[in-house]
């Protein structure tokens, strides 16, 4: 990778130059400002070497191609089946392993809220009625949980911290994330998102990839199903409105 090599080269250069400058300035020139300059260069070199490790192993273009092709395939299935219902993002406790999205096959005013964990299949039955059938699919957000390490807490601060860690830290998809909770509604503001919005069928069901990541992480944190109620873009911010489907006891 070009970027990784650049950071490594810059880091090695700065570290070497800093070490040489601080050594010669301290022992030969006996100049404190120059020694300090050498030490600061050395620190910058180490930071640059560390930042080189954050560069992806495969190029962003290759990643975009993989994401596009998988979304096109999911979109084709959903479009072919004529599904218009909004997907319900389920936490891993309600599926077999990772958080997934459930798209009901039939339009229903009440979104599905399965009482028992769903099997690991594409078409699943989530309720007692014959029409309670849906597609259980893996979304970009499904794999995010493995990046978090541990399950996030359910408080707004914990959700914000988990989303920041994934969206701004690990994936570098945006500059910052802010979470506001009021009752069953959760509003997530993502500043300067770097994934472009497109108008394709799958986004109407699943939401954008960014919203999918946010919804999956939130569902996992709360341990309850979540739907993307609304999603819009204004003034460099992507605003995602989620609705929590509380479990009836």
């Amino acid at each position, binding site marked *: 990778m070009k970027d990784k090599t650049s950071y490594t080269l810059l880091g090695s250069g700065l570290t070497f130059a800093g070490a040489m400058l601080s050594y010669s300035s301290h022992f030969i020139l006996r100049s404190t400002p120059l020694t*300090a300059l050498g030490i*600061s260069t050395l620190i*910058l070199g180490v930071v640059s070497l*560390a*930042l080189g490790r954050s560069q992806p192993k495969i190029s962003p273009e290759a990643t975009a191609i993989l994401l596009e092709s998988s979304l096109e395939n999911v979109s084709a299935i959903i479009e072919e089946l004529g599904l218009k219902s909004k997907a319900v993002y389920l936490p891993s406790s309600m599926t077999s392993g990772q958080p997934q999205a459930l798209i009901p096959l039939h339009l229903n005013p009440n979104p599905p809220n399965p009482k028992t964990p769903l099997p690991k299949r594409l078409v699943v039955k989530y309720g007692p009625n014959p029409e309670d059938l849906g597609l259980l699919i893996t979304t970009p957000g499904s794999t995010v949980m493995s990046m978090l390490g541990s399950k996030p807490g359910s408080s707004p601060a914990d959700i914000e911290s988990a989303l920041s860690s994934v969206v701004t830290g690990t994936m570098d998809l945006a*500059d910052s994330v802010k979470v506001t909770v009021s009752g069953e509604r959760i509003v997530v503001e993502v500043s300067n998102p770097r994934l472009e919005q497109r108008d394709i069928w799958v986004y109407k069901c699943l939401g954008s990839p960014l919203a999918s990541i946010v919804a999956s992480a939130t569902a996992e944190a709360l341990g309850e199903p979540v739907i993307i109620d609304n999603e819009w873009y204004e003034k460099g911010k992507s605003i995602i409105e989620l609705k929590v489907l509380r479990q009836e006891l």
Partner: protein
Amino acid sequence: MSIPERCLVSLAIVYMLTTSALSALGESRLDLYISVYILEYFVITLLHSPLNPRTQRVLNVFGYGLFAVFMIIVALKVLEILLGLRLL
């Protein structure tokens, strides 16, 4: 500019300003320069967190090292005051 780039550029600018300002003031204590650099390192990396976990791990390890250096400088300064000797 991505977050890692911003972090590196901010650190470079802050170090440049610190070195210029302290040398312009005629400061000749190396421990003062190093202490200020270490504090600035922690502030800048904290302001740009969370970074990628792999980067964060390396920066954390480096941070432990810098913190140890900072503690040694502080300990020597305390000893200087207590014993009345010039150690640094």
